[in-house]
């Protein structure tokens, strides 16, 4: 087997050193009944070429943008151009094949890159401190609610915007399902604008309100009145959590921190990670320094070595499971470090100007697409300001999507499954990867279905 270096002579010599005759003698202490049934009913190992052929065949069983389809799919996962330098960086074996930087002296590449990641996430969210990463945006949102509860343990009401991504809402529900003292309520969205109505929070704006969780932009691409929501929540003494699935928006929109948000979480996949059928991406998590000891996950801090050199290491680990065990702030151990590195490399390349211009380009193209669709007789579902996706109304979404697909266009995601009240709506997403010609094809393929 090509991954195992041992020759028969090696094995014999090692067994002799240990003082046994056969490999299976090393397993004598495992109950025989278990060993007798342990054979794995899988085919024998394959050559590298055979494995490659098998997997290439499976990959060919998918049809993706690489096959010439024009895609307007988003819904929490976004196709953006990834500069080649990102892959050149994230494929370095020193990054790829290391683990959690327990030994700081042998991990300065990882620790410094994560320190830079923490800094960039803090800058983007307008908050003071960010952690080293979470699994994804949805689990980060759930962990944010748990953190809010550590900060305000006596409060119970968790108000979740109905316009927050359905997967995020479902994940929060799962994470809270086993815990007492949570009372989940849903804040409706305005059927005209598609934005969460700050007034709808009024019934919960009292001393029982633990937190409000709002998408920014939300599940319809609409830019929430985050400042008004945060002000209402703050007045009640609660905590505002924003969840951003399309973080490119933060390159142009006012930061959650500047609008009064206390905890900003989100999905970082847009920053240099391919779609990969939905994972891995990377969750980000930012908060205020006063609450840092209630944060989940790893943190990297700056320090010095014994020669006075600047150095970086894991810190405030007394919050974490390996020290605090059942009293830890979270059970998270392995996070999404390599994806955080991809985001760090991507954001470095985009930089102060590029990120803003790219975000603007997305807004501009999405707006053009909406106008083209409108000209083709397709009405937008909402009139709120939007970032790079928007909902449209058609008579029969399934038929409309099938017709577009026949014309080589994946026109969007039907909203009916998660929003019965939007059974006539499709979410259309436009990024810089969509050309003007593709946008024209989108409009042509849907013309008349409204």
């Amino acid at each position: 087997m090509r991954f195992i270096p041992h020759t028969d002579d090696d094995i014999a010599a090692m067994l002799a050193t240990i003082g046994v005759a056969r490999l299976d003698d090393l397993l004598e202490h495992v109950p025989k009944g278990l060993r007798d049934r342990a054979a794995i009913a899988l085919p024998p190992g394959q050559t590298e070429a055979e494995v490659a052929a098998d997997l290439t065949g499976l990959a060919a069983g998918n049809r993706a943008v690489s096959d010439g389809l024009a895609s307007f799919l988003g819904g929490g996962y976004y196709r953006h151009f990834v500069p080649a330098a990102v892959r050149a960086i994230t494929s370095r074996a020193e990054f790829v094949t290391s683990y959690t930087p327990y030994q700081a002296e042998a991990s300065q590449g990882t620790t410094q890159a994560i320190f830079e990641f923490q800094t960039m996430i803090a800058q983007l969210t307008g908050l003071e401190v960010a952690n080293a990463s979470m699994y994804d945006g949805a689990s980060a949102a759930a962990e944010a609610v748990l953190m809010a509860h550590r900060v305000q343990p006596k409060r119970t009401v968790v108000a979740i915007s109905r316009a927050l991504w359905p997967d995020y809402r479902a994940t929060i529900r799962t994470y809270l399902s086993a815990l007492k003292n949570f009372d989940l309520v849903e804040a409706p969205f305005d059927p005209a604008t598609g934005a969460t109505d700050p007034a709808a929070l009024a019934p919960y704006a009292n001393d029982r309100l633990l937190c409000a969780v709002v998408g920014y932009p939300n599940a319809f691409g609409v830019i929430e009145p985050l400042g008004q929501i945060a002000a209402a929540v703050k007045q009640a003494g609660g905590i505002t959590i924003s969840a951003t699935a399309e973080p490119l928006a933060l390159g142009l929109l006012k930061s959650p921190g500047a609008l009064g948000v206390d905890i900003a979480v989100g999905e970082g996949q847009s920053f240099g990670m391919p779609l990969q059928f939905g994972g891995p991406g990377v969750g980000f998590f930012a908060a205020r320094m006063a609450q840092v000891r209630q944060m989940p996950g790893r943190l990297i801090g700056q320090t010095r070595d014994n020669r006075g050199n600047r150095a970086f290491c894991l810190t405030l680990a007394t919050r974490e499971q390996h020290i605090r065990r059942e009293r830890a702030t979270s059970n998270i151990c392995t996070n999404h470090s390599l994806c955080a590195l991809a985001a760090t490399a991507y954001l470095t390349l985009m930089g102060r100007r590029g990120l803003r211009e790219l975000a603007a380009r997305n807004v501009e193209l999405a707006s053009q697409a909406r106008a083209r669709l409108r000209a083709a007789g397709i009405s937008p579902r909402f009139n709120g300001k939007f970032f790079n996706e928007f909902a449209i109304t058609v008579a029969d979404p399934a038929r409309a999507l099938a017709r577009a697909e026949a014309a080589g266009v994946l026109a969007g995601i039907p909203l009916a499954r998660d929003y019965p009240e939007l059974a006539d709506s499709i979410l259309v997403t436009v990024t810089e990867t969509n050309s003007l010609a593709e946008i024209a094809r989108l409009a042509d393929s849907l013309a008349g279905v409204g």
Partner: protein
Amino acid sequence: MAVAKKTVSETPAKDILDSTRGADTVALIFEESAPGRRGVDAPGGAASEARAIELLGADLCRADIDGFPEVSEPQALRHFLRLSQLNFGQALQFYPLGSCTMKYNPPLNDEMASLPGFASLHPAAPIHLAQGALELMARLEAALAAITGMDAVSLAPAAGAHGELAGLLMIRAWERKRGGVRRKVIIPDTAHGTNPASCTLAGFEVVVAKSHRRGYLEANEIRRLADDETAALMVTNPNTMGIFEPEIEEIAAALHERGALLYLDGANMNALLGVAKPGDMGADIVHINLHKTFSTPHGGGGPGAGPVAVKAHLEPFLPMPRLARRADGMLDFAADRPDSIGRLRAYHGNFGMLVRAYSYILAMGGDGLADASRIAILNAAYARKRLASRYPSASAEPAMHECVLTHDLEARTDVSTLDIAKRLLDYGFHPPTIYFPLVVHGALMIEPTETESRQTLDDFIAAMEKIYDEAIAEPERVKTAPHNLKLGRVDEVAAARRPHLRWRPEDPKSD
């Protein structure tokens, strides 16, 4: 998983911002910035910016991102490549980090994950356009079921601890369905920290079971602790002492008799391939770390994947989404799963990791996987035997794929386990996991994995022996290690005392 228990000596309080930058270390990217530099030429440029602000209105937009980097593409590349050179990685160094299974990561697996049909597939693509991806997931589920001896598998969890949460929530859901939720989960004192932390998250109280002094769990202890409020035992097998739990079948029977379940933490699955199946041990639930046993890269701390496998009675409770074959033969995600614990994350799982693990399983085959565990066990037994005179084993029991060693240097010359670990870096080896399991004072937990050669082990053993002898003859040399790296001993105490967790423009520049 691993633990770095703090034993760094207290240093006088000093301002951590007041540091120099060694000639071989790397400036922060923010310090390399200059206004006007860029690393991409964004489509649309300034014209788009003006148009977008007009569309959204200036009051929705930020003026700037204060302090964000401004560097050219070559600068960015050099910055990160130079950073990479400050890391140890399994591909370059022996990395026997116990409990983490730092085995070889075949490059083919990364290449397969980047095939356009996988890498550019959108998770909301119409299901008939994603049959290849779903087929891969179905095959991986089946392979993991065959390997673990379980009936059904969910690939949704993103990491081992995420799988633990899924498993514990399933126990809860199963009990609720039976008419009442029990409060307690028993966890041995040798367990990883994620186990008790996951219990808390799943609303359970932790009851700690004491291991026998020889390092394993006794069925009698479980019988003594288990009562009508016991929901489950959560146990890693082989445990964190590297010992196969000899009474596991009896323990499973005792739990089941009490109406409790056996949760097997599969963190150490690399010892069990073709050796013993969790399903045969009586496990009701097992989670598997694809980034350990199935060779997906550790990435400096993830992403991994933590599939959870169950026996048939728990299948209805598996997390969403759940693969199902439709009547027309097409694979789809099941819509109606009323007993499911629900979602743990957005979309379907860490698919890129699933491709890599499946690629690995195909390459190894059933026979190759069985060889892997046997050679992993051989390597650990060999290291243990050869190191025994200076670093005796913490238990006399035979071990599996890893061994936990101790030493007498602390008493003899005040050289700690941490000092040994740091000195190993000077010899070009990543240290083992240290100070874990917590039940062993000054533990060194060594997991060589099957992909390391006898020569590498011999070199490592020679370094360990040399360090022992140095610690006797020249203790200061060991206590002040590392000496040969670009950085000296990092002061972790100072980092925690005054947390500085991000760069700010006003920070003094190190140079």
